[in-house]
């Protein structure tokens, strides 16, 4: 109607240009209440924008009806899925992350006990640090699949912002040299301390995690330390500003090589 005419002073109604930008959010109910009202007011008085909205809504309606009208072969697939689950459940050993929650708690307790014993054998003072090693391994195990990183960000800018907060670096570590990419990041709490947990994916290898936090004096040493935690290797290294953990399914030597490369990027 007003063909994108700029608003005059004191005029609050949206113009065609603005509505065309927002029309999709309007039809998907993604606009806030005020913008919805403003768009509605414009649409009531503008036949051109109103026709565009009608056409797009009709197109969506036809698509939804046609897509939903086709009957998928649900019964056959349902039977296939249930058979596959039963086969897998009877064949697979009870790996700890598949256990019911109370059994996982027992597994966590056992893992912590093993860690503590290993630490004592190594001559450490039993403190918080060995718990941290076990805890990062557990957090990696619980969240290492992309499926379990629901809510994690993949936005490079957001990841770099988090890396600046938690690792005092301008960008998250780059692991492409090791074949790892598609990083996802989330902030997690381990022993009441916040970490940035980054998970990287490889086309054929198991995922790998990096945990970053501002340096804390709870015993994570400056020297590169590699430990075997259950089925994972955990390697830590610390600088005066950042503590870093790398958790992988590789052996300690290879994980340490990756941690060393990451530490060099952070320094």
């Amino acid at each position, binding site marked *: 109607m007003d063909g994108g005419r700029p608003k005059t002073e004191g005029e609050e109604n949206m113009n065609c240009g603005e509505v065309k930008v927002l029309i*999709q959010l309007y039809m*998907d109910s993604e606009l806030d209440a005020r913008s919805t009202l403003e768009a509605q007011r414009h649409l009531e008085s503008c036949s051109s924008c109103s026709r565009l909205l009608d*056409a797009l809504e009709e197109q969506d309606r036809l698509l939804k009806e*046609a897509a939903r009208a086709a009957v*998928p*072969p649900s019964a*056959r697939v*349902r039977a296939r899925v249930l058979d596959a*689950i039963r086969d897998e459940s009877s064949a697979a050993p009870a790996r700890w*992350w598949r256990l019911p929650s109370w059994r996982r708690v027992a597994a966590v307790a056992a893992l912590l006990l093993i860690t503590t014993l290993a630490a004592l054998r190594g001559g450490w003072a039993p403190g918080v640090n060995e718990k941290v090693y076990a805890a990062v391994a557990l957090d990696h195990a619980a969240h290492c699949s992309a499926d379990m990183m629901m809510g994690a960000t993949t936005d490079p800018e957001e990841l770099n912002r988090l890396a600046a907060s938690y690792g005092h670096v301008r960008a998250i570590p780059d692991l492409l040299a090791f074949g790892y990419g598609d990083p996802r990041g989330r902030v997690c709490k381990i022993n009441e301390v916040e970490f940035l947990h980054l998970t990287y994916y490889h086309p054929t290898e198991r995922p790998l995690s990096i945990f970053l936090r501002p340096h804390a004096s709870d015993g994570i040493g400056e020297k590169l330390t590699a430990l075997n935690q259950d089925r994972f290797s955990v390697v830590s290294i610390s600088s005066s500003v950042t503590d870093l953990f790398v958790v992988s399914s590789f052996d300690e030597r290879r994980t340490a090589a990756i941690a060393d490369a990451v530490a060099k990027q952070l320094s």
Partner: protein
Amino acid sequence: MAELEARLQAFEREALAHLDSLLRTAGRVAGSGLDAEDIVQETFLRAWRYFDSFEAGTNCRAWLFQIMFNVIKGRRRDLVSRPETSFEDEMDDAFQPGNVIVFDPTRRIEGSEVLKATGLLSEEHRAVLFLIAVEEFTYREAAEILGVPVGTVMSRLHRARHELRRLLTPNRSGARVSNQ
């Protein structure tokens, strides 16, 4: 055994209830060379493995879709080395490249035509369109499912809808889709 059956019942109630949505989306979005039923089966198997860590009452449907798109992504990666047949090659004759399809511009567009025309969209655009317009996810949920920022969902959706509209709108010669 009783424990397994109880867990399976909960899984059927929470997860398998969304089987239809996953199947129809996989069938339209996965693209050529990928079997929708296999994708959905793998999706549910993965969901089953992590079902204990899924919090009851949270958005199980969005979680399943996120898993499914990861499965699709992984399988597309596997397909890279294989010779690929484009999605267009599998479309009906009416949508074969090189054809001019003459429609009667006064005739109403059928839903089946809209559905077919989505096959000419890119996989990325088609995925967003189905998640929002058919499955009625919010932009934020779609962004999490696809692992992209909300802004990317919005721009892909905008392009998808307008490209679809272009494909379905008769041009001056009365053709809705022209590739000549």
